[in-house]
């Protein structure tokens, strides 16, 4: 039995997305605090604290430099947490998926709902940081900073898709610690959230070149600093590739897990 045929698309995924949205609405208070306030505090703390020691990074204030990185970091974290912990809970613990699959929906519909829901939730995290940037007047160009929004959607899709691969193979919540420790944390440290990638040893710069968070930051940071990113097509293509391959793998692995 081949589980790895290409994922199917159907608009029937929308009621599942709406279900997740309704749950989120009920729990919005704590969710907003965790997903939005936390990265904001880090950004302001480091921005003011370290920013007073580091006057300029790449021609901008450290706060501005960090704020651009934080958009990507926060979007990534939010999407990852959603599809890992909440997704696993819906799939394995609460058996929500099982109930949905008895209705006229397929596992591919459920996966598409998870992918788009993870991206939707992380969009909110990204926009929240962007709002702080606007409030502090850190952006150099209003118009360019608005272009961050579609990029954040793409970043959310990428990390939702990657996270779903983990959810597909996870036996328990504990398993996700591997992903955070071995994938997410090194990526945050390698890809230029807190400092420019160019300050790293060359070998690490080469590794960073392949990681999706680098491409996300290479798109978002110039937009905040007020210039059009270079090599837009290459960065977008890299993120789309990570999204497509991860999603295909996640759907295949999840089919193998559930539909047997």
């Amino acid at each position, binding site marked *: 039995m081949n589980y790895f045929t290409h994922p199917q698309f159907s608009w*029937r995924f929308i*009621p599942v997305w709406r*279900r997740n949205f*309704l*749950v989120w609405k009920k*729990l919005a208070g704590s969710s907003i605090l965790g997903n939005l306030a936390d990265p904001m505090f880090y950004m302001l703390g480091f921005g003011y604290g370290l920013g007073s020691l580091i006057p300029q990074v790449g021609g901008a204030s450290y706060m501005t430099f960090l704020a651009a990185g934080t958009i990507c970091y926060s979007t990534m974290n939010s999407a990852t947490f959603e599809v890992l912990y909440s997704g696993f809970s819906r799939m394995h613990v609460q058996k929500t998926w099982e*109930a949905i699959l*008895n*209705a006229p929906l397929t596992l591919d519909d459920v996966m598409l709902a998870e992918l788009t829901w993870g991206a939707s939730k992380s969009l909110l995290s990204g926009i929240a940081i962007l709002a702080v940037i606007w409030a502090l007047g850190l952006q150099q160009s209003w118009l360019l900073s608005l272009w961050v929004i579609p990029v954040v959607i793409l970043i959310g899709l990428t990390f939702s898709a990657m996270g779903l691969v983990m959810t597909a193979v996870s036996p328990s919540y504990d398993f996700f610690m591997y992903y955070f420790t071995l994938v997410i944390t090194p990526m945050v440290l390698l890809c230029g959230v807190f400092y420019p990638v160019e300050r790293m040893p060359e070998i690490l710069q080469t590794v960073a070149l392949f990681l999706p968070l680098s491409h996300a930051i290479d798109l978002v940071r110039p937009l905040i600093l007020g210039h059009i990113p270079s090599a837009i097509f290459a960065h977008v293509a890299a993120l789309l590739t990570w999204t497509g391959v991860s999603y295909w793998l996640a759907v295949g692995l999840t089919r193998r897990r559930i*539909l047997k």
Partner: protein
Amino acid sequence: MSIIKVRHLAKKYGDNEVVRGLDLDIQRGECFGLLGPNGAGKTTTLKMLLGLVRPDVGEIRILDEDIASHAREARLRIGVVPQMDNLDPDFSVAENLLIYGRYFGLSDAVINSRIPALLEFAGLTSKADAKITSLSGGMKRRLTLARALVNDPELIVLDEPTTGLDPQARHVIWQGLRRLIHQGKTILLTTHFMEEAERLCDNLVILDHGKVIAKGNPRDLIAAEIEPNVVEIYGETVEDWAQQHGAQWCARHEITGETLFCYTHDCIGLIEHLREQQALRYVQRPSNLEDVFLKFTGRELRDA
């Protein structure tokens, strides 16, 4: 007219043949039971019928849809009660019905117009806004049954609908199912409770090791397979009694643990004889579906 038609259905997991050449015909408006010990292939069969598991071999047609290609279309007209409750704990009772109805592509207006009747059916009218975690096991089951009706299905599939319920709650579920049968719904259920099958089912099959080993109407099956009277005899000396008298009084007899099941056509003489046996206690009862089940599937434990 067949609502479910299954031919040559087979499924293997590794070397384990879970379902081996199953044929089923279920007519519109009947209640059909799928019986069998643990591991007989019941749940796998249901999953294949719903298009959630692909069979290795075989054809399934449900409500005139070919499940291999049109499971989604078939499921639009089927209601499913799963073995384990999987209600949405984040929502209230009424919200659970609304959210589930949306999965069928129904508009909120249509679902909201159906919710009062569904709550009434489940006896949960006063609980519309209650949290799922505050419901008893029986209430959850009733809500799960009501949820399966949100799309006004022609066919309702229930996987062990009363497992884990107390007798009162079980009777309420049976009452609900009988109401659905009267409304002309077709019901397919799996169960371990022979009493449940005997009360509700017009027809049934007993599965074992993935094959049908008996089928028919429960009363016909009992009449055809089992002597009309059963005397259950208990006591420490029951084995000795069986050796000395078993063949004389019983058409057939079997010992399980310290109970002897004696199957007879006429038990008057046996009862008189047993009255004089101080060391033995006994119960006389008519034969039932459980006797048929045990005759076909044996008495040894299946998960040992």
